[in-house]
């Protein structure tokens, strides 16, 4: 195992998959000559040339559609959105084209495309640049939604996403790019789409998380452990399809659950997790499920307000204690 940053892990996944399959190409703003706004594509232009690593104008709707067209005829585009905030401009192509082509054509045309880029809030980027949209994409049949929280998952899931025959919305954590972790060096290290992973075992309370909140949940679990509480951390990794089985198995052990996510509360991913648990595991629960989410406001610029708006380990700890009726 090598120790890599999340960014490097993504870069490796891209490089390996482009080397493995000549149909894979990368397109987006600043992905080529600039090496990516967040440097995820560093060195790829040099290695694969301008036909396979393509800088675009600022035209999200257009180049998302170009990706869809290329995918319809069998290429495997990886379309980078500089951030998912800008993808709102392209969402018609993601939802009305990519997600529906296979169905509308009665199975004749698929759309093996990956839309990827950073999601969620970084630091003080304010309201228009600090949004987490995974629950939106996960709402839509025809899409898969992948949200890795660690370098190993980032690499393994991106490889799976590129090899997948369906459109995958791949949301990276903007704050995770510099996070380091062990990553298998095997070129065939893939992480299957649709499987959650228990990142830490514990019998007292389940903490469901994904993407940036994986680290937060793990930190909260540490803090809880210091108080003698054993939290089990379930990383969804894929938001759609949701691995309800792994979630329920954990709740069956703990009988208590907290869902930690970065986005807004209303109809977030956590709402669906809650729905699944209460429906399939009604008798398992000894307490209501509490969700820890971003504040229900546009993100403020001021750093103190921003901090107050974001989820953190302290909030997750407090929620865990609440479901344990400890405070």
């Amino acid at each position: 195992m090598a120790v890599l940053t999340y960014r490097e892990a993504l870069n490796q996944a891209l490089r390996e998959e482009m080397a493995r399959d000549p149909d894979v190409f990368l397109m987006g703003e600043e992905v080529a000559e600039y090496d990516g706004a967040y440097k995820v594509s560093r060195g790829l232009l040099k290695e694969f040339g301008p036909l396979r690593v393509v800088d675009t104008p600022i035209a999200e709707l257009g180049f998302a559609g170009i990706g869809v067209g290329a995918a319809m005829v069998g290429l495997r585009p990886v379309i980078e959105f500089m951030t998912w905030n800008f993808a709102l401009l392209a969402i018609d192509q993601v939802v009305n084209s990519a997600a529906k082509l296979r169905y509308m054509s009665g199975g004749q045309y698929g759309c093996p495309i990956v839309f990827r880029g950073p999601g969620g809030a970084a630091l003080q980027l304010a309201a228009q640049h600090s949004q987490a949209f995974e629950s939106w994409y996960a709402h839509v049949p025809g899409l898969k939604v992948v949200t890795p929280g660690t370098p190993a998952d980032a690499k393994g899931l991106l490889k799976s996403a590129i090899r997948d025959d369906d459109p995958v919305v791949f949301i990276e954590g903007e704050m995770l790019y510099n996070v380091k972790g062990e990553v298998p060096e095997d070129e065939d290290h893939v992480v299957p789409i649709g499987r959650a992973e228990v990142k830490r075992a514990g019998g007292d309370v389940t903490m469901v998380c994904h993407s940036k909140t994986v680290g937060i949940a793990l930190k909260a679990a540490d803090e809880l452990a210091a108080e003698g509480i054993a939290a089990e951390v379930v990383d969804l990794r894929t938001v759609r399809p949701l691995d309800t089985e792994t979630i329920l198995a954990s709740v069956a052990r703990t009988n208590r659950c907290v869902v930690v996510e970065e986005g807004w509360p209303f109809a977030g991913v956590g709402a669906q997790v809650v729905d699944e648990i209460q429906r399939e595991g009604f008798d398992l629960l000894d307490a209501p499920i509490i969700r820890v989410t971003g504040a229900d406001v546009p993100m403020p610029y001021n750093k103190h307000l921003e901090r107050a708006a974001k989820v953190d380990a302290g909030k997750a700890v407090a929620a865990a204690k609440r479901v344990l009726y400890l405070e």
Partner: protein
Amino acid sequence: MATSTNAKARAPNARRAEELQEYLRQMLLIRRFEEKAGEMYSLGKIGGFCHLYIGQEAVAVGTIASLRADDYLITAYREHGHALARGMSARAAMAELFGKVTGCSRGKGGSMHLFDAATNFLGGHGIVGGQIPIAAGVGFAAKYRKTDQVVACYFGEAAVNIGSFHEALNMASLWKLPVVFICENNGYGMGTALARASAILDIAHRAYSYEMACAVVDGQDVFAVKAAMDEAVARGRTDKKPTLLEIRTYRYVGHSMSDAAHGTYRTKDEVEEFRKRDPITLLRDTMIDEGLLDDAGFEALDRQIQAEVEDAVTFAEESPDPAPEELYTDVYAGDR
């Protein structure tokens, strides 16, 4: 406007006879198919939105005649004509309108979403402008693979005011993609006349914003359409450059089956005026002038086509609905 090849100047020969006969057959097939589709819609056999192509037949036929079998087509919701001209059987098309499993999209797409992988027909798309960047992407794939395929992309004149058009044409020109952007200017987007939606009346001139070649074409004259398309296709295939064709045409019928035939946004007289330059009549007259057809021949062809359409209806009528399980197939790759 690109001028029509002067038909009379050419000596009749077998090849030309065959070619014109084929244009006529296709145009008449589209006309009769659409008339029948309208009828079947009124009988409740066809549901949803249904947009007919009557009046615009020469555009589909003339442009598609320039294409090779391995070229690609993509279009909007008014696409029955393109599908038929490209060689989709009337049976597969009609069955799709009926929602039957024998339809080209297994009854899941319907009138607005005919697809046919066998003829590289990349479908009918329902969001105005949505197919334009997709077409550019298909052109990108041709460039990527270093083939000499060309993409024909159809859209209405009302679609040129939407962002997709702008973004796609800019990238297609910037990257030299082999796409022919075919604007079927039938004068109206639903009830909105061109001049009430576009600040410029010559749609073709929008191409200058992208340093793209363009032409204004008489869409009722299949020869003019074919000639302009030949040029545009060559530009794509050989020079690897896109073209914007503005093909001026007219729809005789309402926007969709739920819209009145002429409505309040245009007069009956206007429709009648345009009907005088009917593309099928124009072609038929040329063929008669050239001695390639007589009235009896035309009637025979028409009867044959009407029988083909009747057969398509019977086929559609008798075909089964998709099985209930089909609700959950084709959502993802694995699930069939």
